[in-house]
């Protein structure tokens, strides 16, 4: 145990508190008036439950199929899309040069990534040493 851990433990023990008799009585009295709640038990379902459920499901499916067959299919008419013939966008001639001075930046990124990796390793070592 290191120095800080010892100090933390000692300082916690220096907090002077105790469960008073009054509080003890209060807690006991409260507990007497309570019964632990049992977990909601899941009873196995009976055969009639499953039979009724199956019948309901089959009836619902049959009703759905019947309704779907009664409806006539609708033909969806889509209006023709107007073709834009009035506007012709003028072409803009872009004058751009390829950047050639990227080498220093790439080097800097590599350096930064290396620094991050080193920092991560240092933190990981610290954590592993402590816990």
């Amino acid at each position, binding site marked *: 145990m290191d120095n800080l851990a010892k100090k933390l433990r000692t300082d*916690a023990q220096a907090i002077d508190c105790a469960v008073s008799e009054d509080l003890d009585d209060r807690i006991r009295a409260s507990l007497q008036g*309570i019964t632990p709640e049992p977990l909601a038990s899941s009873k196995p379902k009976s055969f009639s439950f499953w039979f009724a459920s199956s019948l309901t499901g089959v009836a619902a499916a049959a009703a759905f199929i019947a309704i779907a067959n009664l409806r006539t299919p609708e033909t969806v008419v889509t209006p023709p899309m107007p073709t834009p013939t009035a506007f012709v966008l003028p072409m803009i001639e872009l004058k751009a040069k390829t950047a050639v001075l990227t080498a220093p930046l790439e080097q800097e990124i590599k350096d930064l990534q290396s620094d991050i990796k080193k920092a991560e390793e240092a933190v990981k070592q610290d954590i592993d040493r402590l816990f």
Partner: protein
Amino acid sequence: MSNENSLIEAAKRGSATAFTDLVGGYREGLLRFLLTRSSSYADAEDALQDTLINAYRYLHSYDRRWRFSTWLYRIAINNVVRLKSVDTVEIGDIHDEGNDPLAHCIAASDRENLWQCARRELTDEVYSAMWLRYVEDMSVKDISTVLDRSASWTKVNLMRGRKTLDAEFNKSTAEDKSKAYG
């Protein structure tokens, strides 16, 4: 542990006496922890009472894979969070030492109690993590279960908490030395 298990079983069957025996060893530690998170001694006592009542009421939901203390602290922390909107003090908000219950319960010392410093400098969760680790000796896994956080979050924040308190402790020690040497 087998004694604890038999007490748990008896308490599950409705024995309040068995439950009282079961939590007997944890009450003082819980009260001390709740005291550091409450705005008054009475609030801490109420929080302890609520924690034990909830634990007894929902004992059937206790999972044996957890340590019993882990489960109790989880209930206590949930209680504190629930009560916070009503009356509990946010760590770091205590500026008036006259109303601070912790200040009343700390014996006079030549330096500041580190837990008072922790209340000022750390967030609620980091404070709780530090307490569970260094006072209750809980493992990182148990702490992450109590706080409902990942193990890596717990590790990183324990380390941050340590760094902060270490810096504060060293600062106060240096100040004391400079006072001593004039």
